[in-house]
Each structure stands twice: as structure tokens, then as C-alpha cells.
């Protein structure tokens, strides 16, 4: 099967780089699976799980907390501020993140901001379900 270049860069390091067959991305307007030869799209990502399908391997999962995906026919690049390979995530760390966000939400007076953080919390909880914790 055809492959394409997939890069996943974070601000402090490159998390993943290699040839893959398909990748599943949590776009803000819905999940999408990208195969080689995709039309160019630039999309924002929400909190969710990226599933990377390498040739001949089962899907590799990475939790991403918002970012961007630059999709082209021969390459896909994901830019994300925070990303954890699946192995580094535990239910506890997710719970802790949710707790910090809840604290932040309670601390602000700004309603728009409150809504935004609530959205993030819901997304994190979804991610938790998706990861089968």
C-alpha cells in the first residue's frame, strides 16, 4: 500500500516522523482519516487521539491537545503544543489535567473563557473514553 510522510512536531521536540499508510486526526469539524493523495487542507485539531497506521503495524495512538494539521498529497504535518505518546499517558495524568482545568475555570470571571475551558474538559473526558480507561 502507498505511504506518505507524516511528521508530528511539538515545540520542544519532534514526536514522530516517518512513512505511514494512514492517519486518523481529530479535526475541529470532525474526525478524519487521511490516506495518501489527500487534497490539501489546513485544519485545526481539537483534543483527541491521533491514530497512526504504519505499514504492517497496528495503529499507534498519540493524545493531542489541540493544534494544527497541514495536509498535502504527499505529506501530513501536525503541529501541536502538547502531545503525549500513548504509552506515557495514565488515567491519573488525565484526571490531573482535568482537575487543573476545572480549577482554572472556577478561577476566571470571563464567561467566554469559561465556556472554552469547559469545552476542553469535555474533550479530555471524551479522549479518556476513547482510550478505554
Amino acid at each position, binding site marked *: 500500500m502507498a505511504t506518505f510522510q507524516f511528521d508530528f512536531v511539538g515545540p520542544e521536540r519532534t514526536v514522530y516522523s516517518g512513512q505511514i499508510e494512514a492517519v486518523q486526526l481529530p479535526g475541529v469539524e470532525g474526525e478524519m482519516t487521511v490516506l495518501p493523495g489527500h487534497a490539501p487542507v*489546513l485544519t485545526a485539531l481539537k483534543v483527541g487521539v491521533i491514530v497512526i497506521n504504519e505499514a504492517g503495524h497496528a495503529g499507534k495512538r498519540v493524545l493531542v491537545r489541540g493544534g494544527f494539521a497541514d495536509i498535502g498529497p504527499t505529506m501530513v504535518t501536525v503541529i501541536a503544543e502538547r502531545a503525549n505518546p500513548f504509552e506515557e499517558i495514565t488515567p491519573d495524568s488525565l484526571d490531573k489535567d482535568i482537575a487543573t482545568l476545572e480549577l482554572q475555570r472556577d478561577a476566571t470571571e470571563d464567561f467566554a473563557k469559561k465556556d472554552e475551558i469547559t469545552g476542553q474538559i469535555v474533550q479530555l473526558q471524551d479522549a479518556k473514553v476513547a482510550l478505554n480507561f
Partner: protein
Amino acid sequence: MASLKDLRNRIASVKGTQKITKAMQMVAAAKLRRAQNAAENARPYAEKMSQVLGNLAANLIGGVQGPKLLSGTGSDKIHLLVVCTADRGLCGGFNSSIVRLAREHIRGLKAEGKTVKIITVGKKGYDLMRRQFRDEIIENRDLRGNKPVDYDFAAEIAASIIARFEAGEFDVATLFYSRFRSVIAQVPTAQKLIPAELPEAGDSVPDAALEFEPSEEAILDTLLPRNLTVQVFRALLENAASEQGARTGAMDSATRNAGEMIKKQTQIYNRTRQAMITKELIEIISGAEAL
């Protein structure tokens, strides 16, 4: 003339100092390597970010006026200067050269009748600027031994800059830091933050077919603050590498100077000792002859 004992003490003290500078140099060299690695690891992210921004901007041209972070407020009365230095000294001219560049900049702006506000990052910058610009400094952060530089710290600074911008506290923001060219050359640099200086789209031809999800404006709105964070982060990384580079150089020459001093002092010590032996001998011989 100093006695032999004084000379011995002086040599011992210089030797002690030399050991300290030598140790500092080696520590700085090791830290420099780490800082350079960190800067290298961060490069793909920054490059990709500016590429995406370039793409977006190319698509935006002629269309809608971009968000304010990109286009500015339309005036340039109030300038914000973000001066990044180190927390510690003993690194040659590193801190003072950044501050000097900022100071010249401020003088130029004031001569044009503009208002200046300053945010200092790093203890040394604050120490050097606070006497002259007490009223202009509106915020001061130190790195709190924040090593290695982490992204969250850069995000905090960027968030504060953006909050102030949105509150209308300034029109133009400039970032001062030291670009790391090599171990012996660090270049103090001023970089425009707001309005954002967009990278040239360059070889990436504007993709007419590029689709945006959600709209371009929405993406640009979230991308620009992140771009600001990346630039601050990058400046901090470059600064960290430059600081260690400058310290390596300064400590190297300090060690060399100490070596020279020891050599000179030892020579004086030996000469004095020999002179005393000779004097004693002459005394004995002339005493024997007188008998």
C-alpha cells in the same frame, strides 16, 4: 618589596581563582551543548509554524484585513520592549550588550516622542535597566533557575504580552535577545513581535486549492498567538545558548589570565628567594674574610 610569605599567599590565591574559573568554563561548555541541542530540537516546530503562516498570509493577501496581531493597531505611539537577558552574570558582555542595544533603541524612540514600556525577562536585565528606566518597566520576570527553558514559561510571557495588547496598552512590540551564531559570536538582536513580521511565502507557491477548516480567519486567530509564543520561546532558547557560549569564552580568558599571573608571580618569587640566598652568602663570605 613584598616578603616571600606574601608572594606565596598571593600565588596560592590566584591558583584557587584559576581552579574556579576553569570549573565554570567546563560547566558552561557542557550546558552549552545541552542548550544547543534544545535549540535544534525546537527548530522543526518553528519552521513548520512559519511555513503554515506564510501559506495563510499568501492566501489572505488582497482579501480581508487580518486580525490586529498581524496588521497592528494602525498607530505606533506606544512601544513595548521585551528585553530578554540571563539571570546570572559572569558571562562577559552578554547581558550588557543586549541592554545596550535596548537602551539605544529607547533613546531613538524617545527622541521621536514615542512612549516606551518595558518588560524585562531575566534578573540581570532588570538590574541593569531599573535605575535608568524605573518608570518605564511595567513587568519583570526572572527565569527562576528555569532550566532548561520550557515552553510553558514562554507561553506565560506571550500570554501577558497579548493580554496587554488587547487591553490597548501598546501598539508595537519588539523583542530583544541575543542570537547564537557560534561559541565566540553572539549577536544582540531586535525582533518585531507585533505587528507580526510574516515569513516570505518563498518557494511554497500559494495553493489556491488549499482548504481551511474552519475558516482561514479562525485558524489565523489561533495561530498568531501561538506564533508569538514560538518566537518568545525561540528567543529564550537562543539566549540560553548564547549565555553559556559567552560564559565559556569569558571563563576561558579568565583562566588564561590567571595562568599568566601565576607565571609572573612565580618568577618574582623565585628571583626574590635567589636574591636573599645570595645576600646571605655574601654576608658569610665577607664575614670570613674580615677575620
